[in-house]
């Protein structure tokens, strides 16, 4: 009966829309009163912030959250972890042992197999997934790995992925199904997923390291834990989005609940679920690469990292390209398999055979025959290839003489390039540092110095700055845009003092205020407690350092991405040109992204910012283009027939309609940016990412986990703010 209850609920939800819209309209009636209250609140907000700022140097409490108020989270977490390990450490070690067997088998198998056999297998799978084009791509990629002498390292990485993906898929799928059937477990699973996906990948490594011991198996476990989340989500969404009429038709055909699940829901949701497999594979690869940071694995991630540390950029670029190729190959193959039409039928036959014994025995026999047949064929081919390879040695192990040493050429080329454009590069870096990044970080009061801006700030500069801010604000008050006025004043203050030195009570007040107006009491409370944790744990300064870098990078990424998205939506050839670039940027594991920027700009915050921008602009671009393209043709035609110019059409019709999607893009950009932020700790940023890194290298669980939770709090709050904003926009659009 659960089926009918679900549909019933859905219908009842759709009915309840009416009273809700009544409420909204009643809000609207009271609008004038509410507006007055908000104006009053804004005034107070601005006054309190200004007071904080004025007295920041006089009152020590405002400047820094007092040490004696902080709570000792770090030692507490450490003792907790220690006692946990001593209590149940051996069982975790056992699991690690258990997992290490199949992992080692696959590793050794891939190492043992002649390269031509691996290539043949890959070609076969590629052909099934994406036809001839994909075969060519895979073969070329594998040859690249051979030629550069990175075959062994690549195979080690691939082995980790091959073993972690099935495990992650199984784990994710079962959790997704569980969540689908039990609303209660869904309420537990979804927030846990949120946390799991927002805690940076680095922070995972630490507890796993402590629990499971060293070795490649840590990478495997980390990648399973990191990669199962998208599978859960996609399974859940896929099952939830099955057309209710399809389910009703299944019910009316007399399906029992198990038949309904296996024969109706699952096949209908399969496409989404397979998409989950694709995302899981990508996440798994990216974590396998990141996990190499703990060492002990002779895999491709380690290759990149160790060469980068030695400043051998040529080598790291060559190895980085291997990762990119590997990622693209896995992405295309899994995505291709998800698109195939015959796969669902095969799965369905298997399900059927399990489900209803006798009638399908013939199907099953056919399947088994064909499956066994294929397996035999495959083994036979492998055997033949292997035996040929045993005769011709060069087919088994790629001869050392055939390696192409491209890295030394690259190295010299890079050195030349950098010395050639040194002036340009430095001026780009310095200008953006002095005029954009530093003012936001430490404030105009400190950023302006003869060394940076060419003059020192006097009291008059401050007065002019304050007056111009006030003038803009007055203009907004005059035009009755009070929110804008308050925003201008608060931003003016932030730029004056810098985010890092901005008084924490003022920051919290503004954040909670925004949260309250966007998402009500619940979001305000969440913000309050989230920020409270950051303050109490004593990591406020680090948080602000991360926050400033993230804000500036994501702002630029979003702006840039949206702009490009607008162009791509109106220009087909530009869109076609950008697609492979975006694909590459998005499938690339984040830390490969660092290589070119480190090469050009050395380590530092500017490099980190560029890496974040390039990683985070892609979702903004994609969602913007998608949103603009999705605007119904009739509406565009209607607007055109009213006589809009091209710009009017864009700004008054298309962009407002695409706004929900654009905001979704912003949300995604923020998530991507934050995940990249941690990785940038590798190139020497200060902040939470660095803390995680320190925790990892020292094996200090407390430091790492506090910083990890801090990042998760920032990410989750940003996500909730975006969602609340979207909801508010949607509600207004209904009006």
């Amino acid at each position, binding site marked *: *009966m659960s*089926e*009918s*209850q679900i*549909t*019933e609920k859905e*219908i*009842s939800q759709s*009915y*309840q829309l*009416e*009273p809700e819209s009544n409420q909204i309209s009643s809000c609207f009636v009271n609008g004038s009163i509410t507006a007055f209250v908000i104006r009053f609140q804004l005034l107070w907000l601005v006054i309190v912030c200004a007071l904080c700022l004025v007295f920041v140097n006089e009152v020590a409490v405002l400047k820094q959250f007092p040490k004696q108020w902080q709570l000792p989270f770090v030692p507490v977490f450490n003792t907790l972890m220690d006692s946990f390990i001593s209590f149940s450490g051996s069982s975790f070690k056992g699991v690690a042992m258990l997992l290490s067997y199949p992992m080692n088998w696959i590793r050794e198998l891939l190492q043992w197999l002649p390269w031509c056999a691996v290539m043949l297998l890959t070609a076969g799978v590629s052909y099934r997934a994406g036809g001839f084009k994909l075969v060519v791509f895979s073969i070329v990629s594998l040859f690249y790995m051979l030629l550069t002498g990175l075959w062994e390292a690549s195979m080690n990485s691939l082995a980790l992925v091959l073993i972690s993906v099935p495990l992650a898929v199984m784990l994710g799928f079962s959790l997704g199904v569980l969540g689908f059937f039990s609303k209660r477990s869904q309420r537990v699973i979804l927030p846990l997923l949120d946390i799991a996906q927002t805690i940076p990948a680095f922070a995972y490594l630490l507890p796993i390291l402590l629990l499971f011991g060293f070795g490649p198996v840590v990478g495997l476990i980390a990648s399973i834990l990191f990669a199962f989340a998208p599978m859960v989500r996609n399974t859940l969404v896929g099952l939830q989005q099955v*057309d209710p*009429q*399809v*389910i*009703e*038709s*299944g*019910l*009316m*055909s*007399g*399906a*029992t609940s198990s*038949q309904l699940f296996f*024969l*109706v829901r699952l*096949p*209908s949701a*399969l496409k989404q679920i397979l998409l989950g497999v694709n995302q899981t594979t990508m996440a798994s690869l990216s974590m396998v690469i990141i996990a190499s940071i703990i060492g002990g694995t002779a895999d491709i991630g380690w290759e990149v990292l160790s060469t980068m540390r030695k400043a051998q950029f040529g080598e790291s670029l060559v190895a980085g390209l291997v990762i990119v190729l590997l990622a693209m190959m896995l992405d295309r193959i899994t995505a291709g398999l998800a698109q195939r039409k015959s796969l*669902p*039928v095969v799965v*369905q036959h298997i399900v*059927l055979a399990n489900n*209803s*014994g*006798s*009638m399908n025995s*013939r199907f099953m026999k056919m399947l088994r025959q064909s499956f066994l047949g294929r397996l035999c064929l495959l083994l036979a081919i492998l055997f033949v290839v292997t035996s040929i390879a045993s005769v011709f040695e060069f087919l088994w192990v790629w001869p050392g003489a055939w390696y192409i040493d491209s890295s030394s050429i690259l190295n010299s080329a890079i050195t030349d390039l950098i010395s050639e454009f040194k002036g340009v590069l430095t001026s780009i870096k310095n200008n953006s540092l002095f005029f954009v990044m530093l003012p936001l970080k430490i404030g105009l009061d400190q950023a302006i110095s003869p060394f940076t801006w060419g003059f020192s700030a006097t009291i008059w500069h401050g007065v002019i700055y304050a007056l111009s801010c006030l003038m803009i604000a007055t203009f907004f008050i005059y035009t009755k845009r009070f929110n804008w006025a308050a925003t201008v004043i608060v931003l003016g203050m932030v730029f004056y003092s810098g985010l890092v030195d901005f008084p924490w009570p003022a920051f919290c007040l503004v954040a909670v205020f925004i949260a309250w107006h966007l998402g009500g009491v619940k979001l305000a409370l969440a913000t309050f407690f989230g920020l409270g944790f950051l303050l109490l744990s004593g990591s406020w300064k680090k948080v602000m350092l991360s926050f400033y870098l993230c804000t500036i990078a994501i702002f630029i990424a979003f702006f840039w991405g949206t702009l490009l998205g607008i162009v791509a939506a109106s220009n087909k050839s530009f869109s076609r040109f950008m697609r492979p670039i975006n694909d590459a940027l998005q499938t690339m594991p984040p830390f490969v992204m660092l290589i070119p920027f480190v090469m050009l700009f050395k380590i530092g915050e500017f490099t980190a910012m560029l890496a974040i921008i390039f990683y985070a602009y892609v979702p903004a671009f994609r969602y913007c283009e998608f949103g603009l393209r999705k605007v119904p043709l009739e509406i565009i035609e209607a607007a055109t027939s009213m006589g809009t110019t091209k710009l009017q059409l864009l700004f008054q019709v298309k962009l407002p309609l695409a706004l929900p999607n654009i905001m979704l893009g912003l949300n995604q950009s923020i998530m991507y940016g934050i995940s990249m932020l941690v990785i940038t700790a590798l190139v020497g940023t200060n902040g939470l990412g660095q803390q995680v890194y320190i925790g990892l290298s020292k094996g200090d669980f407390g430091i790492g986990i506090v910083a990890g939770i801090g990042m998760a709090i920032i990410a989750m709050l940003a996500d909730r703010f975006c969602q609340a904003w979207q909801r508010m926009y949607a509600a207004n659009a209904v009006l």
Partner: protein
Amino acid sequence: MSDTAIQRPVKLSCKHLWKVYGDKPQQFINSSLTAESVSDIDQLASSMRQKNHMPAAIDVSFDVREGEIFVIMGLSGSGKSTVVRCLSRLVDATHGEVLLDGEDLLAKNNRELIEIRRHKMGMVFQNFGLLPNLSVYENVAFPLKLQKMSEQQQREKASRVIELVGLTDRENSFPHQLSGGQQQRVGIARSLAVEPDVWFLDEPFSALDPLIRRQMQDEFLRIQQVLNKSIVFITHDFLEALRIADRIAIMRDGKIVQIDTPQALILNPADDYVAKFTSEVPKIKILQADQCMQDLPAIDNARVSGDSQTDIDAHLPLEKVLQIFSTNADVEQLRVLNAQKESIGIVTAKSIVNTLGMGLDKGLDQSDKMSQSSQHTQAV
């Protein structure tokens, strides 16, 4: 069909059915649902709405007889889909009884319900509800497969219904390769594959183009002539209802306003709401000879002309009657014969104009009430 259908035994019966959406719908049921009078029911419904509950079906009662096409007509949101889902128990009713062959469906447990759905019910959906991953044949055979029927039997039964809807050459196509009309044929075939007694169709043709819709209606009537199922047909299209129905129930805001045959609906709309629908209808296609005749003049008792050309059947559509008048200029009146070949009245130009005009009055003047129209009918 309409006279005979009424004498047939009741197949499916729905008694005082309520469906209320909201947090605690049961709170209203226990207190005062026993009340019979109309005003009480209205009061109850409005009190539900006040307490943020949504009564989607309000005291719905009707019988569907064997072989009858029973149409529930209403605009969107009138509760017709809810009613048909309560009948098939895709949605559980809040209160009331649904009797199938005299057995209370609402009391069945899950196992029994599945059996009933497997053998006695078929349902067709507005958006087809086809499984996108299965071919036409596999979709049609799906309910049979669920019953674990042998493959040969599946093949037999599925092929028969596929042939019935005329899709034999598309058996191996997938739903996305078919047009809307073809997809709905698959939906129809699937619902018929188990040879159900009761056939529910929830706006089956609403998602189709008007021309295809017309064609599918004919197809549907043809199939029904072959199979003679007991049918509950949901639609928002009044013309469609008139075309196919033996009886029509008109719903508004969860309540049934009127249940009648198409002709009776047009002649005696229960209220303005129904009249609004009927005023748009081309009446000459719906009305029949016996609905627009005068009483026999006394002298006519004996055979006056003896000319069989002026005798017409009681169920001859008005359209055809008018054709006879227009082709034979010298005919002034036609004699109406019932099934037993007894004359029951005559049709003249004046009687036709009277009948049509009466409906016209109603359409033009909405305040014109029932009483007046019934006087008209008596006068005629």
